[in-house]
């Protein structure tokens, strides 16, 4: 015990905070790397279902997002309560999809275009009718790589 009691008398030296900026910078760079500035403001309520056989989408720039869901509370007076499609940041119809795909495509170099994926972020509660319409339109527009966006499910099915 004497070993410890000796120290007690001494005043503790100030901890050097010189390396604090470095630590903070490290964190800062980490967050700068992982950050994706939210480009579109979601007007629909989209809770994607859960699944197990998931694939990760690697290149963000090659992905375009199609949201399907019911409008959120604040937009219900404008768009109603039935499921709608959102492309980019505006509520659209199925007929706007080809243009939307084209606008995304022209921003990319030619050699990457075949790898474009459409990610369907669909609310679990909507019925397949509207999803089917979107799928048909995508097939007609020759955008065949799609991704049903889903969360990871931990447990097993009932």
């Amino acid at each position, binding site marked *: 015990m004497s070993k410890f009691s000796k120290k007690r008398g001494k005043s503790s030296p100030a901890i050097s905070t010189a390396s604090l900026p470095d630590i903070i910078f490290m964190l800062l760079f980490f967050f700068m790397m992982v950050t994706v500035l939210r480009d579109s403001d979601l007007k629909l309520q989209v809770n994607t279902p859960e699944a*197990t056989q998931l694939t*990760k989408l690697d290149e963000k720039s090659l992905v375009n997002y199609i949201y399907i869901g019911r409008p959120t509370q604040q937009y219900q007076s404008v768009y109603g309560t039935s499921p709608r499609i959102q492309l980019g940041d505006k509520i659209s119809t199925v007929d706007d999809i080809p243009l939307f795909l084209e606008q995304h495509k022209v921003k990319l170099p030619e050699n990457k275009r075949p790898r474009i994926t459409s990610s369907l972020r669909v609310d679990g509660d*909507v*019925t*397949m*009718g509207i999803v089917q319409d979107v799928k048909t339109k995508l097939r007609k527009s020759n955008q065949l790589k799609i991704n*049903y966006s889903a969360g990871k499910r931990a447990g097993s099915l009932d």
Partner: protein
Amino acid sequence: MAKTKTRDRMNNEINAGSMADIAFLLLIFFLVTTTIAEDKGILVKLPPWSDEEPDITRLKERNVFSVLVNAQNQLLVREEPARIGELRERAKEFIMNPTKRPDLAEGPRNAIISLKNDRGTNYDTYLAVYNELKGAYDELWDELSERRYGQPYSEEMPFAQRKAIRDEIPMVLSEAEPTNFGEEQ
């Protein structure tokens, strides 16, 4: 004020005390705007659009594993009601047919899974069914890969090995045009 000597000035340091504050400010900004949204999902390749109906009459009945989902989210697998939970095992048994039953697929190369839903089917249910069917193939690929190469099937494997496995058990999941009985919401 007395003029400082040059030697003194050399010893001066820039005060870095506020550096942490500046970094904190930036850090908080990025923390707030960040969405670590890693997008995951079930990757699907749609068939190209064609105007004529696919002809499925030439397929032998034993090679087709038909899954129907109605607007009440109920499943009909090979004309019998089924639950989603048992779908994966049944699909695996159908594809591989380990006991050589005459009513299951002749072989994994001949097996076709046909999925048909209604326009009133819930997306939740549809995706769960799709997930199970894809899961059946994923598990079969894993098993085959484990037997042959001693490692589970993954995208990191050499292309030739992946191709060999996918040739052995090709994933044929055909989706028919949905029926239109149920009520859409």
